[in-house]
């Protein structure tokens, strides 16, 4: 009997006194799952175990390059822990946003690690692998039909050129894809890019739980114990009763309180009151949070509004050249005071030496406001005693980028300016060589929402036995 058939036989349905236990084992699989809390969660006999592996937080490089943000060693460790944990409990394991970004190469890398674990540990496993790569031709058609919109003002409307420039484009799948995969009764679902909530809401929906509370619970537990005081990465148990659910961290040192859980709705959300999913919208404005005891909370009242028009959130990354950096510092008050004049002069000098090269050269003066994204962030900063310069170049070729930062650092070292005293050099280099090739640079080329009339066609499921 498959673990899913067994779950369908034994798991409580809505309204049952015991509740459906959903264990969130990791919000960032591959960064090191804390083992004591995972063990405590497994001891509670969950009906399903979920893990999120992905995020856009680390930036476009991972999606663009097809690389995981986590190390192979720790990812292997974490996968081994949850695979064995799910087998021990004889329950399904759902993993979403495989390999950080959830495109084809990320899914393939995680599948390879699962194969290695199966081989080394003598396991036989059936996986339902759900792909999340978006077909470029279809997407161009949707752009042409004006059915794609940007998610924010920082990115322009999507074009066919940007689609072609992208190394990878993925769509965030919702529960629809997980439900199709569950129907195949695998031991493990390994999903490409997925909505965090879909990983944890799919089994409750399969069992007939109402979508509002099920999705709200999923939204909170997908970050494991981050909704607690103090927040952390320990496994989190959600127990769903139907109209309400209970939350408990599997680390006894972490407390879920009504305010800590409500506050989690703010985290990384542009709108704390409404969460958009492919199949609809979760509304949490009417949610109630009550303490059960000092470290457990009961939540109820969230509602679900099914979408008239299903949508897919798209993420794409494009290469934009090769990056090189040079690192240097100054402790000279005159250099610090004249830093803008110096860097502008150096930029001109580099352009004179390399007149035909296409490159993008930037100077960042750390200690003097380089961290601020907004113009107002740099006001009222005290004049620094020392400044760290990050000289950065992005160019079409790695040797050009390195040449540019090399010329820039040398020019900056000896740059003359009015009032200069220390003619030995303007800069202190922390090591040699101070120029470092930083590899390909990427940017998010796609961060848009497309309408979609047939979600099933875009997230194909494949059964794999290892």
């Amino acid at each position, binding site marked *: 009997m498959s673990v899913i058939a067994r779950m369908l036989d034994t798991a409580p349905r809505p309204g049952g006194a015991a509740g459906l236990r959903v264990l969130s084992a990791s919000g960032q699989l591959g960064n090191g799952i804390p083992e004591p809390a995972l063990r405590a969660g497994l001891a509670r006999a969950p009906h399903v175990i979920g893990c999120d592996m992905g995020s*856009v937080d680390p930036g476009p490089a991972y999606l663009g390059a097809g690389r995981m943000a986590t190390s192979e060693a720790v990812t292997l460790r974490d996968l081994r822990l949850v695979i064995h944990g799910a087998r021990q409990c004889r329950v399904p394991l759902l993993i979403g946003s495989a390999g950080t970004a959830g495109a084809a190469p990320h899914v393939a890398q995680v599948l390879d690690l699962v194969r290695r674990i199966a081989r080394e540990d003598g396991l036989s496993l059936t996986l339902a692998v759900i792909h999340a790569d978006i077909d470029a031709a279809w997407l161009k058609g949707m752009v042409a039909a004006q059915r794609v919109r940007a998610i924010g003002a920082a990115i322009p409307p999507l074009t066919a050129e940007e689609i072609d420039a992208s190394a990878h484009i993925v769509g965030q799948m919702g529960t629809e894809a997980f439900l199709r995969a569950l129907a195949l009764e695998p031991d493990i679902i390994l999903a490409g890019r997925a909505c965090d909530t879909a990983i944890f809401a799919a089994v409750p929906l399969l069992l007939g739980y109402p979508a509002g509370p099920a999705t709200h619970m999923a939204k909170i537990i997908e970050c494991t114990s981050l909704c607690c005081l103090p927040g952390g990465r320990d496994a989190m148990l959600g127990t769903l009763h139907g109209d309400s659910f209970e939350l408990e961290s599997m680390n006894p040192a972490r407390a879920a309180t009504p305010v800590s859980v409500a506050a989690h709705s*703010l985290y990384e959300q542009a709108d704390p009151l409404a969460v958009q999913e492919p199949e609809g919208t979760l509304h949490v404005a009417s949610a109630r949070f009550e303490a059960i005891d000092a470290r457990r909370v009961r939540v109820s009242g969230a509602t679900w509004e099914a979408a008239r028009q299903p949508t897919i959130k798209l993420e794409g990354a494009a290469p934009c050249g090769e990056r090189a950096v040079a690192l240097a510092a100054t402790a000279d008050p005159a250099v610090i005071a004249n830093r803008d004049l110096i860097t502008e002069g150096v930029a001109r000098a580099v352009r004179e030496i390399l007149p035909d090269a296409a490159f993008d050269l930037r100077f960042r003066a750390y200690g003097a406001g380089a961290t601020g994204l907004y113009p*107002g962030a740099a006001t009222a900063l005290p004049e620094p005693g020392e400044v760290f310069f990050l000289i950065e170049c*992005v160019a079409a070729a790695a040797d050009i980028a390195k040449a540019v930062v090399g010329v820039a650092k040398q020019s900056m070292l000896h740059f003359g300016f009015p009032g200069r005293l220390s003619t030995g050099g303007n800069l202190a280099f922390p090591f040699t060589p101070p120029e470092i090739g930083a590899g390909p640079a990427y940017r*998010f080329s796609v961060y848009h929402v497309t309408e979609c009339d047939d979600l099933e066609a875009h997230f194909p499921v494949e059964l794999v036995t290892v």
Partner: protein
Amino acid sequence: MSAPSRRLVDLAQVIRSKNAGPLHLTLDIMFPDAATYGIAVQSPALSRAAIAALYAVDPATVEVIPFAAANAIKVVMDRPVIAGSPGDTDVYGAQQHRPLLGVVL
């Protein structure tokens, strides 16, 4: 007896920034209780216009969302650069809260 402090750093429990996706930055200001939250939510120092002036951006790119259930005020701002693109300074957006530290309600 001195008057109670009106400095945001003395009243708030959490003052943080983070991306909400690569196109938006959010500022979360959380208070220890409903009374303190009530003072903050009525203060002009945390209005859309005041936040826009503090960060020197167009008020049309700023939204202030009070969230009473968490005794919190959320601010959502357009990012001037897409997270992680060349020219970005803070890929996670986690160090953009500093201007709030000087706010007096």
